[in-house]
Structure formats: C-alpha cells, structure tokens
C-alpha cells in the first residue's frame, strides 16, 4: 500500500507540518503572552489579525502570501536576496502557509492557559528572586504547558491538513510542496481517483491519530507532574 510516492508525500507532510509549528511556536508564545497580559486596549487589533487566517478563505490567504512574500514582492525579494530565503514553490512556503493557518489555533489555547494561571504563584517566585524572565521560564510556561500542548496539537493537525493556502502560495510540486491533502485533492479531481485518495486519507488519519496519542501521552505526563488534587 505504501508505494514510494505515498511515503514521499507522507514524510514531506510531516516535515512541513512539524516545521510549521516549530517555527511559529516562539511567536505564538509571545503573541499569546501579549494578549493575555497586556492591558493596552489596542490589543484587540492584534487579536483580530491573529484570527484572520481562520476567517478568510484559505485560497485568499495563499494569494495574499503570494502578493506579500513572492519573489517579486518587496519583502519576499529582500528575504531572498539577504537570507536566500525563498518561499514560493518551496517546501518552506508550504510550511509558512501551514504556520499561518495554524497560528490562531496555537495562540488561543496558550493564551487561555496563561490567563488561567494564578498570578499569586508568579508573585511568590518574584519574592524568591526570580526576575520576570525567569518567572516566565520557570513558573508561567511550565504551568501553561497544557495550553501549549493543546495549541500544538491543533496547529499541527491544521498544518497537516492545510490545502488551500498551500497550493495557492507554494503550488503543487511533487517532492517539494505536494503534501498529503494536495495529493488527495489531486486524486479526487479525476474521475476514478477515489481509491487512491481514500488510501491517502487513511494515511492522514493514521498520522493524526499517532500525533494525538503522542500529545495525549505528553499531556498526561505533564498533568501527572502537575496539579490534580
């Protein structure tokens, strides 16, 4: 059942989705932190921006990415010239698309967990000599771990399933940007392609199940290490 193409598509998908969540995690943490802690009224605008990829049709997001980060765009050109960082038609583009689409799903649970943290425990850490930075690293983040895990699961799943933005921005290039959903889509578009599509769908499901089980086990371990009276 797993011919080389399937394996190639699968490993590319995993790689793209993993990269997507890994690169977006630090920014997501920062944004979630800002949204959870800032009292600035304008933070709603940031909040709205973060959620935009959810509301807009993925194809539009992909198109905007193309306009904003394509080789001929100002930013895209600069990135390409300065860092050699090219997105269009590259797996990096697929990862970026996945990261953006998964971003709101990563931010929100982290924010939720941050907001649920009892600030008194953080104060206690401060009295023990921990600077705000250390409090964040040794108290806040560990306590927010359930939210981080939930966010990672959602974002990873979303990145794995991302189709519209990816194909629009990064196109469908076998071995480079042809991820699982794009491959599935391709099969589904042709009469009689259903069985190959079904096969890939099963692979998707298996992968996501594995990811979920892993996350669940991690979350359990974390929870065992933490709370629960």
């Amino acid at each position, binding site marked *: 059942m797993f011919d080389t193409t399937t394996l190639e598509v699968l490993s590319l998908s995993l790689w793209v989705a993993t990269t997507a969540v890994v690169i977006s995690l630090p920014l997501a943490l920062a944004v979630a932190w800002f949204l959870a802690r800032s009292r600035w009224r304008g933070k709603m605008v940031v909040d709205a921006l973060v959620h935009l990829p959810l509301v807009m049709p993925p*194809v539009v997001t992909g*198109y905007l990415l*193309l*306009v904003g980060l*394509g*080789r*001929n*765009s100002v930013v895209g050109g600069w990135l390409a010239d300065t860092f050699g960082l090219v997105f*269009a*038609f590259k797996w990096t583009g697929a990862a970026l698309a996945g990261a953006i689409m998964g971003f709101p799903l990563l931010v929100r649970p982290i924010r939720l967990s941050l907001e649920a943290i009892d600030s008194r425990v953080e104060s206690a850490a401060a009295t023990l000599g921990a600077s705000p930075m250390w409090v964040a690293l040794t108290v806040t983040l560990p306590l927010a771990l359930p939210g981080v895990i939930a966010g990672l699961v959602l974002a990873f799943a979303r990145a794995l399933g991302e189709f*519209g933005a990816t*194909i*629009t921005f990064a*196109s*469908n*290039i076998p071995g480079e940007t042809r991820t699982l959903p794009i491959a599935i*889509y*391709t*099969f*589904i*578009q*042709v*009469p009689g*392609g259903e069985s190959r599509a079904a096969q890939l769908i099963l692979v998707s499901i298996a992968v996501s199940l594995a990811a979920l089980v892993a996350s669940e086990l991690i979350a359990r371990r974390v929870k065992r290490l933490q709370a629960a009276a």
Partner: protein
Amino acid sequence: KNDHILVFAAASLKNAMDGVVDVYAQDHDTDVRVSYAGSSTLARQIEQGAPADLYVSANQSWMDRLEDGGDIQPASRFDLLRNALVLVAPRDSDTALELNRATDIRSVLGEQGYLAMANTDAVPAGVYGRQALQTLGLWQSLQGHIAQAEDVRAALALVARGEAPLGVVYASDAVAEKNVRVVAKFANDSHDPIVYPAALLDGIDNPAAENLLAFMRTDKAAEIFARWGFEVVATD
C-alpha cells in the same frame, strides 16, 4: 417569480454565465441561480442528487461520466463553448517564442523557474496543457519544472505576480488579466478540443430550464460569451 432554475456551471464561466443569465432574466419571469464550482465538484454533487436543472461542464470527461451514470438527459447534451490554450508571460517580460517541437521552454524558465499550470492530472486546463506539451514533445523536458496550481486562475495568478515566468492557461483567462501577455497560442489540434458541454439533468421536467438552455445558443448569448473570450460552438 414563478419559475426557478438552478444552473451548475464550471467556475471559469462565471463572468460569461452571469452576463447571459442577467440578460435572460430581463425578459423572463424566472429566478435563475447559478452555482459555480469546479467541474468535478459539481459532477459529484449531481451524482449525489443535487437539485440542479442544468450542468455546464468545463470538460467532456465529467459530462461523460454523468451520462454513463444516467444522471443527465443525453438528448439534451450539446457542446456549448470552445476555448483555446495559450502560453502567457508576465506583462513586462520580453519573452518571445514560437511553439513548436524545437521550442526551448526550459531556458526561458531558467534554473529556478517553473511553468505554471493547473493540476495536470485533475483540472481540465492542466490536462489539456499536458496533452499539448506532449504533442509538441516538450513534456518530458519540463518534468520537475512545472508548478501545478489548484486551478487555472491560480496558475494565472502565479504568472501575473511574476512568480512564474511562463504559464499555460485558457485564452479566456488571459483576455482579462492585465498583468499577463499572451506569448503564444497552442494549436487547437495539439490537444483534445476544449469544449464546454451543457445538458439537462436526469429527471428534470422544467420548461424554464429548457428555455434557458435554448437561450444559451442564441446569438444574443453568443455575443456575451464571446466578450469573455469564449468561442461559441454552435448557435441555433
């Protein structure tokens, strides 16, 4: 309104079909609605019992499949429109080439460049493009240098944004996109005829729908189709 018609039409027909329907609605006491989506999507929906009256596909194969499945009225089927396939480049590029067996598309693309096409296995425009390139014997050399987009419009966008130096799209698409320039036209015989068949769906007994179908073959409709870059196959 007394009569209701639901048309399922390939998404690429939107402008033209909207124009036709508008004109039709002016003279008729009919509520016409058009659902635009990919031909494949619409065909599958029809297979699943979609409540549509008419189907206008962007290629023959999905219509064939519906006919085989008994989902349309074979007698009502006819080829409505024809389209052509062109090679486009960004507007300000100076690419010039002729399409023949010796054309070196690779060198125009360069090391990093891709030829933008709609999905070459699935989307009609992509399939026709593949046929044309195969006929010209250029297909093999382009392997690994084709960026397959979701559909023709996405492929067109890639060229319009300058991401891809060249793209294969319908003539009708190229007409309206100011940021691209038609470099060359594929010979009509280098690929299966690009026709848009239309048919009444099985079990439909809606005089208004038959009426609209007939209207599409009128000169009045043909004029509108032509305005959006389509060739009308036959008028009554």
